[in-house]
């Protein structure tokens, strides 16, 4: 009975996939509009590191015409493939620089790039040139807010990422590779779930991305983002209850919640002094209040790729990192 149910669950999405794949023109409902693909893209542009990395993971390097908006170096296992893809810009490129690559498809990670106030251009602008665009479902769920990173009403789930992988792979006519990738990530998540079970119920976490100034208020993960999801999978508690992706919270509020573990983001970006994980750690151990917290005194500080704290292909690695750290701290009981 039990196995039958699992088999049914696994089979359900698979049948859904096979029934629609390979049928061009392909129409996919994406972020409130329909993307129509007449034939599998041959010259795609990735706007946003995660979109590009997903395409590379699907083995599509030779079908890409460019990439832009990079936060950190490409995943090591994708470095060789990434070499083949023209980099339009590290940061946000302008519309013409993207169009100059003569793309036949745009895969965007953020609505801020191609949404109604898109910094690169709007999806309509691309559509006017006959270029279909696709926005990551992980970002569509975020209410756009120019002054911050937006808010999320519903908890992020890896299903959104799986949906992105699935839809991209079908549009590129490599649905089998997409299925394989999704299965791999699902297996990794299942392994963590099995290892942690419900042994982390007493653990509370705070995820510190960065801060405008090191000793000032901190951008920490809200309850519904990818970090909130990691916490939920672990069965632990995120001390922040805001729906915003990265609310700015004072250390007094963090100290009041007295988290068991502090996760600090590592990144190559150096726009603020607190982007540097060394500066973060230094603050934690020297601040008159924070240094007295249990988590700091016991050394329960985890370093984690900041991109894993956001909905990306790296979130699964973040989950594994935190789980392994909790285990090594002896907090799984």
């Amino acid at each position: 009975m039990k196995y039958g149910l699992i088999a049914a669950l696994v089979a359900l999405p698979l049948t859904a996939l096979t029934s629609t794949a390979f049928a061009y023109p392909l129409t996919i409902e994406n972020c409130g509009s329909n993307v129509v693909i007449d034939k599998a893209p041959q010259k795609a542009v990735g706007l946003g590191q995660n979109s590009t990395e997903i395409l590379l993971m699907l083995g599509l390097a030779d079908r890409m015409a460019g990439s832009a908006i990079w936060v950190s170096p490409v995943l090591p296992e994708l470095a060789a493939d990434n070499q083949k893809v023209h980099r339009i810009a590290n940061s946000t490129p302008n519309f013409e620089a993207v169009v100059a690559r003569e793309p036949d498809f745009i895969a965007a990670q953020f609505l801020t790039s191609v949404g109604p106030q898109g910094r690169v251009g709007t999806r309509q602008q691309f559509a006017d040139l006959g270029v279909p665009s696709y926005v990551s479902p992980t970002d569509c769920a975020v209410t756009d807010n120019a002054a911050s990173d937006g808010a999320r009403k519903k908890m992020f789930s890896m299903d959104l990422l799986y949906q992105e992988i699935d839809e991209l792979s079908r549009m590129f006519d490599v649905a089998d590779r997409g299925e394989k990738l999704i299965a791999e990530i699902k297996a990794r998540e299942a392994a963590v779930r099995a290892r942690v079970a419900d042994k982390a119920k007493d653990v509370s976490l705070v995820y510190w991305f960065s801060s405008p100034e090191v000793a000032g208020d901190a951008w920490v993960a809200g309850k519904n983002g990818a970090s909130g999801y990691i916490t939920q999978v672990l069965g632990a508690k995120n001390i922040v209850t805001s729906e915003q992706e990265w609310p700015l919270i004072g250390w007094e509020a963090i100290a009041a919640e007295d988290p068991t573990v502090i996760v600090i983001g590592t990144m190559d970006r150096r726009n603020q002094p607190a982007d540097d994980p060394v500066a973060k750690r230094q603050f934690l151990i020297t601040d008159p209040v924070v240094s007295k917290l249990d988590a700091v005194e016991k050394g329960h500080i985890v370093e984690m790729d900041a991109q894993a704290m956001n909905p990306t292909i790296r979130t699964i690695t973040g989950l594994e990192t935190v789980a392994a750290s909790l285990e090594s701290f002896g907090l799984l009981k």
Partner: protein
Amino acid sequence: MTASRIRLWAAGTAGVLLVLTALLVAMTAGVAIGEMTIPMKTTVAAVTNRLGLTEIAVPRIQEAVIWDYRLSRSLVAAFCGAGLALSGAILQSLLRNPLAEPYVLGISAGASTGAVSVMLLGFGAGAISLSAGAFAGALLAFAFVVMLASGRQTADRTILAGVAASQLFNALTSYIVSTSANAEQARSVMFWLLGSFAGVRWPDVALAASVVSIGLVVCIWHSRALDAFTFGEDAARSLGIAVQRVRIVLLLVTALMTATMVSMVGAIGFVGLVIPHAARFIVGPGHMRLLPACALVGALFMVVADIVSRIIIAPQVLPIGVVTALVGVPFFSVILYRARRVA
């Protein structure tokens, strides 16, 4: 002394005492209110413990929150408010322009340029801090405005110079950010344009206290000269005032105070503009009374604004500059409206 002068003096003293009391109450509230729920008894004990008066056992994290976070923050807010209001008053008198204040004159824009230059362009090769960069940027912008606005002064020239400086330095900041900053989702490096007391600790209190105290003394020392400036430089000169020297000294003091504040807590607008007008409305234009009044009212305003910024959307923090404008503008409107009816 005539009877009316005595009455005036008594009213002034009563006013000062009133504002001082309000300031003390506000600072006590600033220390007592926060995201961490701490009983009043613990709060008092934490302060007296650290002052060496008592040795009452209190949770050490709570004691540290009271002493290292809240009290230092309250004190810096008070000094900052005093310093910015004082700077505004001096600039308004010296440049004979009711709109003059550090924020309008582009000093905060200069500070942000200095900060991003250090952070993103690597000026000073790690040897100078972000604050030092902001400080240098603020001074540079200030010098730029004074240079453009000096000579024969008209009311518009100062403001035009300030607008030009703001535009220039904001453009430089944007240029540096867009060419040098790494990609990010939506955040920008704009802490310097919003202001925050969150990062201040005791060393900042010492710095703010000394700079503002020195500034206050120097300004009050020149209060008679400032009174004379109200009637123009020629009038001041004819009263035997070394116009050039006084101008330079007071501009330097103002620049020093503003740059210190901006490098410490970012740019906080509106205080330098509103408080001097409010204070003038209460105590009149004489600088001997106006300057201390500005310092006191500015301190009170900023401490209250900081409390509001912390509790209004707790546990998140509203940028202090948003609060000063939200509270300041209606207040300023009332003053303007009443002044219109009086006139």
